[in-house]
């Protein structure tokens, strides 16, 4: 029963993602932090990843690498049917196979998609476990199913849940759109589509579960050790204090590893029965079917614009499908980013018999931005306006299209200016599609807005040892983004040390609490907490130094592993000499306390892309991308730039190649592998130039920093789409923009 409850909660995950990570009411800090006054030496610089060498030399342990004495291998039997009733299940033969230690029925009633877990086996090796799966006898009664969004929307199509497949889930309106359309000189309506994407992190999902008496220890490839711990405790009905979750290194998650997974539960149950640790690692195919996807969207946008570029009205009708799970709310960029008095949004989720959706790097914003930003270029063309001018014309420093509260900081205008200059905006075709010949070049851009605020009550410790060594400790997790590195950089900078002087400890629920790594919240949560702890440690040491040097602690400076008299730098004491006077290790607790309300906290950016379209073969080549982001103070430029490169590569990939392919009659995914589900390769990567706007948010936290996880993923497909439009004079209007679709679009243009 407990497990069921949990599953129900998971079903509504896209909304809870929104609730969990978006800016919300926070405890009010007692004093404003004034981070803009601080000066740093390491922060905002280029510190190489402190764990880079370990990772590239294969020494860093991933969940796949965990090996324990007596380890058993778990495998999961999955439904071959898109919708079926389980009539009976016979585990006897599988149980009797030598080497099999446990067989578990996981599903009793109905299966709702191909790949849903039905039973699990633990055996002494993978080979026997797989063999045992084939010996489990399940009798199904197959039922009618529907696996494509278009089919599911039809009235008489089989129902996925009790109610109709089409469900309203997000409405918004302000002003009166009809009035706005009347005031407009041009009104346009267009439909854009995005295909379902699969997260496909490099490291597939997996967990290892081990019981130590009544205590459960789980090694998990997860973005959220604390969520997994709490989920396990609840589902197994044991105290949270009896569950420990560890995550050392991981090869990405992109939202697909944000909570407790059903296979982790299976591993825990199998381990309980067998009294042995159990490891379950999912295959690439299982990753394609069952651990999440980015919902598709069919977005019809309507907009009105005056001759001078004033946007009068915008409306959106969106049908979005995330399988048996919810679709994505795609309207937020439209609601927020441009000055616009009249808006109307109706979003509907469309259920199908396919694997459940999960948040995928900027859920909703990626699809919404692709459609909105492409649409704006068409609006601009209607009134013969430079599309960048249209965006500037409707610029606002208050959220909700100028009708809300002020942004605490917003450097989007600078993003526009830098991006346009660096790409050579003047080089674009003044009229979309005006160039001739087989190969046509074009330049386009897209705007990004995202959340990226921290999570109040995040805790972190800095521990000083009498021998001068220092630990930075936080119960967060590094997805591969560089969390470990800035966790060394911040205390090092604060204490006048080097990053290599700091031992970073993360990825364990025994450490001070930190939330999931999602929603671009990690840096603005962890960085201020660790800074808070480091400042406390520094101030404590300053006092000690002041006594030793017999000066006022106000006059103490820190640098080069020394505490010194700022008025007489020759008078100093080394960090090591100071800590020697500590009789024992000393822990300083830090916390991110929150930010003042009354302001909107968002991240901003703009991508500018140059493409070449081969009009004979329909192939799009992205030549160059200029990415400009405003994320407050950058903690570490080196890893921040990597983050942007990753976002752009993924964006190019989904703009041009990626899409889940379903067979409507069999109900199965046809490309559950990395041959047919095509990810961009290094050959497909454009030249990338990255800039960060030099702004420090004055109140968000003690460092003035915002998040960067999602932002670089958001505007890239729109920038490419608009560059294609600029090249050939028509939008492809559907991702992925593969040659077949490009050729079809060009044909439509000719006709």
């Amino acid at each position, binding site marked *: 029963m407990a497990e069921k409850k949990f599953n129900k909660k998971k079903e509504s995950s896209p909304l809870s993602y929104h609730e969990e990570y978006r800016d919300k009411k926070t405890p009010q800090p007692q004093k404003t932090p004034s981070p803009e006054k601080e000066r740093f030496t390491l922060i905002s610089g280029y510190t190489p990843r402190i764990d880079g060498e370990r990772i590239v030399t294969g020494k860093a342990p991933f969940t796949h690498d965990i090996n324990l004495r007596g380890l058993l291998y778990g495998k999961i039997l999955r439904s071959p049917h898109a919708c079926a009733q389980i009539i009976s299940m016979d585990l006897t033969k599988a149980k009797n196979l030598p080497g099999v230690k446990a067989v578990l029925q996981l599903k009793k009633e109905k299966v709702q998609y191909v790949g849903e877990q039905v039973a699990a086996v633990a055996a002494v090796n993978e*080979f026997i476990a*797989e063999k045992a799966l084939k010996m489990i006898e399940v009798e199904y009664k197959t039922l009618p199913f529907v696996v494509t969004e278009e089919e599911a929307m039809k009235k008489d199509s089989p129902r996925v849940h009790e109610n109709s497949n089409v469900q309203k889930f997000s409405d918004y309106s302000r002003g009166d759109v009809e009035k706005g359309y009347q005031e407009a000189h041009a009104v346009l309506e267009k439909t854009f589509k995005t295909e379902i994407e699969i997260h496909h992190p490099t490291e597939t999902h997996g967990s290892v579960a081990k019981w130590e008496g009544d205590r459960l220890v789980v090694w998990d490839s997860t973005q959220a050790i604390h969520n997994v711990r709490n989920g396990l405790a609840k589902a197994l009905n044991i105290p949270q204090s009896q569950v420990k979750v560890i995550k050392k290194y991981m090869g990405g998650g992109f939202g697909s590893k944000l909570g407790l997974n059903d296979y982790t539960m299976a591993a825990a149950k199998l381990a309980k029965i067998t009294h042995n640790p159990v490891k379950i690692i999912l295959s690439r195919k299982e990753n394609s079917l069952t651990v999440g996807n980015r919902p598709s969207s069919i977005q019809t946008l309507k907009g009105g614009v005056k001759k001078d570029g004033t946007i009068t009205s915008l409306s959106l009708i969106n049908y979005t499908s995330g399988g048996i799970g919810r679709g994505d709310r795609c309207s937020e960029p439209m609601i927020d980013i441009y000055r616009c008095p009249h808006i109307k949004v109706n979003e509907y989720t469309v259920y199908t018999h396919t694997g459940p959706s999960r948040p995928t790097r900027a859920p909703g914003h990626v699809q919404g931005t692709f459609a909105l930003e492409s649409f704006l270029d068409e609006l601009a063309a209607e009134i013969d306006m430079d599309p960048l001018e249209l965006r500037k014309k409707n610029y606002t420093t208050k959220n909700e299209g100028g009708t809300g509260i002020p942004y605490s900081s917003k450097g989007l205008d600078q993003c526009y200016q830098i991006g346009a200059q660096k790409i050579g905006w003047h080089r674009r075709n003044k009229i979309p599609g005006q160039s001739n010949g087989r190969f046509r070049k074009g330049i386009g851009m897209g705007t990004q807005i995202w959340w990226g605020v921290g999570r109040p009550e995040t805790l972190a410790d800095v521990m000083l040892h009498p021998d001068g060594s220092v630990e930075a400790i936080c119960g967060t997790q590094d997805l591969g983004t560089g969390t470990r590195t800035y966790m060394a950089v911040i205390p090092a900078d604060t204490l006048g040390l080097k990053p290599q002087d700091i031992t970073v400890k993360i990825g364990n629920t025994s450490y001070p609490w930190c939330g999931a790594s999602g929603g671009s919240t990690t840096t603005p949560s962890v960085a201020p907490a660790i800074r808070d702890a480091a400042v406390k440690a520094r101030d404590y040491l300053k006092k000690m130094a002041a006594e030793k040097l017999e000066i006022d602690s106000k006059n103490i400076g820190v640098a080069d592993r020394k505490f010194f008299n700022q008025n007489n730098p020759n008078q100093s004491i080394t960090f090591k000499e100071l800590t020697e006077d500590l009789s024992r290790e000393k822990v300083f607790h830090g916390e991110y306390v929150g930010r003042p309300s009354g302001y909107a906290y968002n991240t901003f950016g703009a991508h500018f892309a140059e493409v070449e379209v081969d009009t*004979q073969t329909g192939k799009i080549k992205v030549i160059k991308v200029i990415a400009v982001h405003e994320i407050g103070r950058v903690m570490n430029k080196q890893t921040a730039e990597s983050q942007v490169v990753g976002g752009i590569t993924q964006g190019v990939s989904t703009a041009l190649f990626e899409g889940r392919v379903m067979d409507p*009659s069999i109900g199965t995914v046809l490309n559950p592998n990395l041959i047919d589900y*095509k990810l961009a390769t290094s050959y*497909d990567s454009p030249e990338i130039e990255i800039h960060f706007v030099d702004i420090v948010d004055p109140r968000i936290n003690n460092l003035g920093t915002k998040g960067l996880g999602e932002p670089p993923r958001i505007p890239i497909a729109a920038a490419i789409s608009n560059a294609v439009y600029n090249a050939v004079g028509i939008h492809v209007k559907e991702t992925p923009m593969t*040659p077949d679709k490009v050729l079809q679009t060009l044909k439509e243009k000719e006709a």
Partner: protein
Amino acid sequence: MNEFKLAQPQSVGQATSFLSQKPKGCHIMAGGTDLLGEMKNGIIDAEVVVDLKSLPELSFIKREQNKVRVGALTPVSELAENSFIQNEYSVLYEAALSLATPQLRNVGTVGGNLCQRPRCWYYRDSQILCLKKGGHKCFAFNGRNKYHAILGGGPCFIVYPSDLAPALISLGAEVIIASSKKEKKIPLEEFYVLPKENLLQENILQPGEMLKEIQFPLKGSGEKSTYHKLKERGTWDFALVSAAVNAQITNQSFKEIRIILGGVAPIPWRAKKAESVIKGNRITQSLLQQAAQEELRDAVPLTDNAYKTKLVQSIMSQAALSLVKT
């Protein structure tokens, strides 16, 4: 993957005798880049795997008096790195280099490439029993078929995925087939069969037979060749459509020309109609267009793959014209 026995023959004779003993569940493994995928995904259940890697003598590239000989076990990367091939047989060099990724080229062999199984996604799903696997229906026909055949299809609509096959056929290659009884030599072009003739396999190999060697004539004077491959992404991709062209050019016209298309048909597709339009005529863009149209007269696109006709037109003239320009 099922349990299986691994046979490591010490000679070609031993290999073919293994093969003849247990023809049914017996599979040849060369590099294994394709075979192991089929086994792991449960598409085939092998009882015996005959591992040709124990026969290094089948890996060679030899230039003789009037022909070039390539052993079946030669890694694809060696074709791409061999300077003689690079200089004399652009079509083969370019095809080898266009194929998969460096890792796969290092492990995959020429023989394995010519004998690889189809990539149709219905075929590659172990839970789907389509015509090719002895079932009653081609799921691609009314299903998702953007990568399927526009020429020569029916009742199965696979495209033959090999990049080396079109290139080698354009060079007039022959293959030596060994069995426990005898060896035979046939043109590579005749090695492949349409589904109409044999649904279950793509070539004429009989149980107990294996591909031993590939041979092709030395390059003639005035002969030029090239391989063009259109893929969705920059690398690590099978051809949407490809064209191997080998021609003899005199006075701005093609005296002789062989065009073999990949990615369009269940076999490497010899574009004979296009060849006859082109042969002996002055090379112009419109001649090449006309040739492509002639070839495509027989094309029967499925629901999702009509765009391939446009790609054929583009690639054929692109490839042929590139020979004139260089």
